C-alpha cells in the first residue's frame, strides 16, 4: 500500500513538471502563442456573447434588411434584417461547443477502444481494428453525413454524428501508443501488485499513451468545426434560426451577388477559429515531440 502510494505521488510530481516543460516550450513558440490567444479570445466571446453582441441574434429589423456594413451594423444585416455581427458572436457558442464536445466524446470512445485493442491483442484487437478499417474506408464527412441523415438535425444529434467520425483516428493512435508501452516494466509491476485490468488500462496504460492523441485531438477540433459548418451548409446539422456559422453561409449563398457580407464574415470567423486551433495544435505537437527533448 505504502509503496504504491509513494510511487503514485512521485509520478504525479513528474507529470506536473512535464506539463510545465511543455507549457514553457509552447510559450516560446510564437505561432502557438498567437493561436492560443486567439482561441481564448473566441472562447471569451462565446461566453460573454450576450454582453458583446449589440443586438439579439433573432431580432429582425425589417426596415433595414440586407443593409451593407455600416457603423450601426458593422458586418451588415441579413435578409431578415438581423445583425450579422451579433449572429456571429452568438454562433461562436455553437461552433465551439460542437467542436470541443464532439472531439472529447470521439476521443474518449476511440481511446477506450484503442487501449482495449492494444492491451488485449489477439481476437479482440482484430475485431476492433477491422471495425475501424471499415469506419475509415468511408471518407470522414460521408460517414458523418450518413449518421446525421438518420439522427436528423439538431445540436445534440450533430454532436453525436461528428463524434463518431473522430473515433477511428484516436483509436488507431491510442492502440499504436499502447503497443509501445505494453511490455514496460511498470505494467508488469502493476499486474504483480494485483491491480485490476480496468485500473491498469485507465491509470497506467492510457496516461502513458496520451500524447499523440492529445495532438491529433487538438488539431481535429478545427476540422470538426469545419465539418459541422459543412453539415449545416448542406441542410443537415444545426437548423435556423440558430445562428450557426455554416448555416449563416448557407443562408447567404443565394444572395452572394448582392450582399456578399452575409457569406464573407461567418466564413472568416470559421477560418479564424480553425486557424487558431491548428496553430496551437502544431505548436503542441512540436512541444511534445520526444525528438526535441534533451
Amino acid at each position, binding site marked *: 500500500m505504502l509503496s504504491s502510494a509513494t510511487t503514485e505521488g512521485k509520478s504525479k510530481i513528474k507529470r506536473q513538471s512535464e506539463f510545465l516543460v511543455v507549457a514553457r516550450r509552447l510559450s516560446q513558440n510564437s505561432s502557438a502563442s498567437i493561436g492560443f490567444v486567439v482561441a481564448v479570445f473566441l472562447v471569451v466571446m462565446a461566453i460573454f456573447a450576450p454582453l458583446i453582441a449589440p443586438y439579439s441574434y433573432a431580432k429582425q429589423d425589417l426596415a433595414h434588411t440586407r443593409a451593407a456594413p455600416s457603423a450601426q451594423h458593422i458586418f451588415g444585416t441579413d435578409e431578415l434584417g438581423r445583425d450579422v455581427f451579433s449572429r456571429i458572436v452568438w454562433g461562436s457558442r455553437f461552433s465551439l461547443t460542437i467542436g470541443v464536445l464532439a472531439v472529447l466524446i470521439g476521443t474518449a470512445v476511440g481511446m477506450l477502444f484503442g487501449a482495449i485493442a492494444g492491451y488485449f491483442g489477439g481476437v479482440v484487437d482484430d475485431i476492433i481494428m*477491422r471495425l475501424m478499417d471499415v469506419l475509415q474506408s468511408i471518407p470522414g*464527412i460521408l460517414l458523418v453525413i*450518413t449518421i446525421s441523415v*438518420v439522427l436528423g438535425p439538431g445540436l445534440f444529434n450533430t454532436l453525436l454524428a461528428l463524434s463518431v467520425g473522430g473515433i477511428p483516428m484516436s483509436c488507431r493512435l491510442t492502440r499504436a501508443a499502447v503497443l509501445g508501452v505494453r511490455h514496460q516494466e511498470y505494467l508488469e509491476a502493476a499486474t504483480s501488485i494485483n491491480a485490476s485490468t480496468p485500473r491498469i488500462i485507465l491509470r497506467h496504460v492510457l496516461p502513458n499513451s496520451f500524447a499523440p492523441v492529445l495532438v491529433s485531438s487538438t488539431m481535429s477540433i478545427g476540422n470538426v468545426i469545419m465539418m459541422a459548418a459543412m453539415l449545416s451548409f448542406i441542410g443537415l446539422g444545426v437548423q435556423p434560426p440558430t445562428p450557426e456559422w455554416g448555416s449563416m453561409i448557407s443562408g447567404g449563398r443565394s444572395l452572394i451577388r448582392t450582399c456578399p457580407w452575409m457569406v464573407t464574415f461567418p466564413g472568416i470567423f*470559421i477560418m479564424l477559429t480553425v486557424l487558431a486551433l491548428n496553430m496551437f495544435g502544431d505548436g503542441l505537437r512540436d512541444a511534445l515531440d520526444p525528438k526535441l527533448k534533451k
Partner: protein
Amino acid sequence: MIPVILGVTILVFTILYFIPGDPVRMLLGAEPTPAQVLAKRQEMGLNDPYLVRLGRYVGGIILHFDFGKSWIYNTPVTSELLHRFPRTLTIAVICMLMQILIGTPLGIIAAVNRNGWGDRLSMFIAMFGISMPNFWLALMLILFFSVKLGWLPPYGIGGLKYYILPCIANAFPGIATQARQTRSSLLEVIRSDYITTARAKGMSELRILLRHALPNALLPIITIIGNGMGMLLAGTVVIEMIFAIPGVGWYLVGGIGNRDINVVQSSVIFLAIAFTLIMLLVDLAYAFIDPRVKARFAGQKRRKQYA
C-alpha cells in the same frame, strides 16, 4: 479489400436502416389508404426482415453491381451513378494532380529553406489552406472571379473553364496538407546520418535532395495522397452542390433533400468503394516504391511455402 467493401456496405445499410419515418407515406402523398401503403411497402420490399433486405442489397451490389432503385423516382441508381461518376472523378483527379504538383514542391521548398522566408511563406499559405472550409472558399472564388471579374462561369458544366473554380476550391486543403506532410517527412530524413555522409562526400545539395532525401521521405507523402483522395472525393459533395455539377456528390445531396434513402446509401457506398480501390492502388505503389515492403511480401510468400 472485398471484406472492407462488404463491411462498408453492411455498416451504411445498417445505419440507414434505423432512419425514422415511413418513406411510403411520404411517397404516396396526403391520405393513402392502408391497402395502398401495404401494397407499396410490399413492392419496395420494405416488409421483409432486416437480414433479407440486407442480403438482397449486398447481393445485388456484389453479384450484379446493382444498387437498386431510387425510392422517389423509381429509376435505377446504378446507371445514374455510373453516368455521374466521371465528373466527380475528373474533379478528384485534377485536384489530386494539383495537390501533387503544387503541394509537394511547396513542401520541398519549405524543408530545404528551413526557417527561411520560403519556409515561412509556404507554411503560412498551407496553414490557411487547412483552416479554410472548402465550401466557403468556393463561394469566395465565385464572388471574386465570377461576380467581380466575370472571368469564369460561377456554376454549371461545359468546357474546361467550368472545372477551374471547383478544382481550386476542392484542392486547396489537399495542397496544404501535402505541403505540410512533405515538409515534415523531408525534415525528418534530412536529419539522418546518411545525408550528413552524402554532404561529407561533397555531393551537391540538389543531388542529395533528389537521390537521398526525397526517395526516403516518399512513403508518408504517398500515404497523404491516398488519404487526400478520400477527402477530395468527399469534398466533391459540397463542391458539386455549390457549382451545380451533376456528379455523385450532388446526387447524394439531392437524395438527402428528398429523403431518398437508397440514393444516399448507394452514393455513400459507391464513393467508399472508389476510395477503397484508390487506397489499394496506394498500397501497391508502396511495394513498387519501397524495396523493404516488397521484401516483406516476398518473405511472407517464402515462409508460406516452407510452412
